[in-house]
């Protein structure tokens, strides 16, 4: 039942996805999360949405794919911007914004006591990071003179930590019962836990471990954050070329490297199909597949097939 319904609902969900102000792209390490975030960003920008991709923890993977300059909020492609969020910078920006004078912020930032406080407070870095993401998604930006975005795509850290980042505002608001940060934490959490405002795209390879992790994330997300996975992207799907008759013909053929390569490719494609079927069976969210892109260096032309596949899906 779910299988026959999946294509239609995938399209509906994916279309709704780009109407949310924030889309979080998450997944296990090595599944191509940043590539998917970049492709999704390009697809959204081509639809006319002013889009920004936010990376965290000093990663610049998206920027490397699309040839960014590393400058904050630089435009990588028409309508597609990029920022790499550094918790230290986010902290500075926050304090400058919150405190009456720049000098007071500087006193804090240069204070040894404060740096200990920042290091000792669980979740503060995550809160500042996600606070910056929230800021990017606001109609009325805190950053002076900054234009608003239609869509913020967060290229989240690998799954486990991704949940930690998303649940940071709630953790923080719960831990500090009063005070301005707690209030702000609750405001940010209200956005992150609202399925109308925050979408989640889980990226997986059609392989056992990434599929397991995606299913675990889907189970954990509603309690930990309050949203659910909107769309699962099975990335890196290899072509499945050979049917049973082909395989029999290959078995009868004289052995050679091309024939061996065909068997290897066939075995891998079959293993992927089995995992994909399991993912489709077990996941509640619709699953779209993206083809395997072979390139030593991923760049904008190399991910073009992914962009087109995502455009078709939405």
């Amino acid at each position, binding site marked *: 039942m779910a299988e026959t319904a999946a294509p239609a609902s995938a399209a509906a969900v994916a279309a709704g996805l780009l109407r949310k102000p924030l889309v979080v792209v998450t997944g*296990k*390490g*090595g*599944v191509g999360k940043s590539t998917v975030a970049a492709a999704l960003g390009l697809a959204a920008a081509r639809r006319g949405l002013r889009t920004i991709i936010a990376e965290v*923890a000093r*990663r610049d*993977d998206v920027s490397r794919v699309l040839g960014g300059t590393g400058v904050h909020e630089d435009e990588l492609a028409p309508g597609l911007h990029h920022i790499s969020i550094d918790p230290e910078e986010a902290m500075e920006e926050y304090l400058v914004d919150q405190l009456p004078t720049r000098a*007071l912020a500087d*006193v*804090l930032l240069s*204070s*040894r*006591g*404060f740096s*200990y*406080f920042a*290091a*000792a*407070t*669980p*979740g503060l*870095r995550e809160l500042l990071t996600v606070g910056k993401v929230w800021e990017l998604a606001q109609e009325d930006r805190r950053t002076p003179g900054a234009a608003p975005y239609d869509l913020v795509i967060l290229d989240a*850290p690998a799954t486990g*930590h991704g949940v*930690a980042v998303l649940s940071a505002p709630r*953790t923080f608001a719960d*831990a*500090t*019962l*009063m*005070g*301005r*940060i*707690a209030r702000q934490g609750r405001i940010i959490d209200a956005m992150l836990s609202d399925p109308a405002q925050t979408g989640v795209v889980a990226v997986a390879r059609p*392989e*056992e*471990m990434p599929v*397991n992790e995606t299913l675990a994330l889907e189970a954990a997300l509603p309690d930990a954050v309050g949203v659910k996975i909107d769309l699962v992207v099975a990335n890196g799907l290899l072509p499945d*070329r*050979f049917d049973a008759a082909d395989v029999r013909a*290959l078995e009868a053929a*004289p*052995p*050679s*490297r*091309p*024939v*061996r*390569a*065909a068997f290897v*490719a*066939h*075995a*891998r494609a*079959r*293993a992927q199909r089995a*995992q994909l079927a399991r993912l489709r069976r077990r996941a509640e969210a619709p699953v779209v597949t993206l083809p395997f892109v*072979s*390139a*030593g260096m991923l760049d904008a032309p190399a991910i073009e097939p992914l962009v087109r596949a995502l455009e078709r899906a939405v």
Partner: protein
Amino acid sequence: MRRRLQGRRVVICAGSGGVGKTTTSAALAMGLAAAGQRVAVVTIDPAKRLANSLGLAELDNEPRLVAPDRFAGHGIEMHGELWAMQLDAKQTFDELVAGLSPDDAARDDVLANRIYQQLSSAVAGSQEFTAVAKLYELDRSGRFDVLVLDTPPSRNALDFLDAPDRLTGFLEGRALKVFLAPTGLAAKVAAAGTSVVFGVLRRLTGVDLLNDLSVFFRSLSGLVDGFKERAEGVKALLGDPATTFLIVSSPEREAVEEAIFFHGKLAEHGMPFGGLVVNRVHALDGAAGEADAAALQAALGASLAGKVGRAYAEERALAERDAAAIERLRAETGDAAPVLVPQLAGDVHDIDGLVAIHAHLFGLARAVVVPAAAP
């Protein structure tokens, strides 16, 4: 691999996420155990099927012996012992606190503290620290000849190497203690700047958080020396001549860059680099030669020959990409002969899969052939 690990007591497998670190660690430990040593493999986040295939319903924070008959019928003769455990960061941290506390009251104070509860499980670096702390404890116990550690999927290799230093530096928190206790003597010595900082923080965060932090550091004060001593021991173990770091990678660009970065960090920290393991290599089958398009077409018909041709072209392209990646790893790390493990058809979470990987690690399988790197 056997030669590289000769005389090593601690083998640490490092690398970025998704490169097969856990499987490599398990296969390595299995090979060493088969040869007669008592080996414990410490994993972080193993697939449930890996635990199942070892006959352990669940891995937990204590090493469990894998029944030797598990390997019967898989071509492995177990002459030693293979033990496996899954690191529980929180439990390890709790045990550490319990071990270092002067009395039960001090222990309970720390364990019940809200800041501690978050710190021990959630904060970046605590998993890295507890992993090496556990390693140290197992090493000291003398129960094992070799320990194999599968490291946390940490993005930043530094987290792992610096964990002991950062954690003790943080736990000492002298500056923080001064500034969190703005009464009594501390207030008198506190600079004017500090009280400004305190005032601002109180406005931003409310007093609860500051109180919690203050209580946390006070209750920890009795444990700090013990922690420092432990961290020193852990650091010494990481740099010990009997310790070696294997860097596990795949030929994917991200993993390669991470491996090179980590290799640089190892050198910077004076930690011993034991070699590279490159998993998921697309190899060309060396046994069967080329067949030209005409011969394929004659044997298979135009349509199937075309599909075979495309599959072969893709495999070749991947093999060439991988060859270039391996060449780059060789040049950057100085490991002239990295251990290559081919891409296998399925995921590796059963004994046969482990045996297959193990055969490549220990040079028992046919060597993986990659094409000459493109110029």
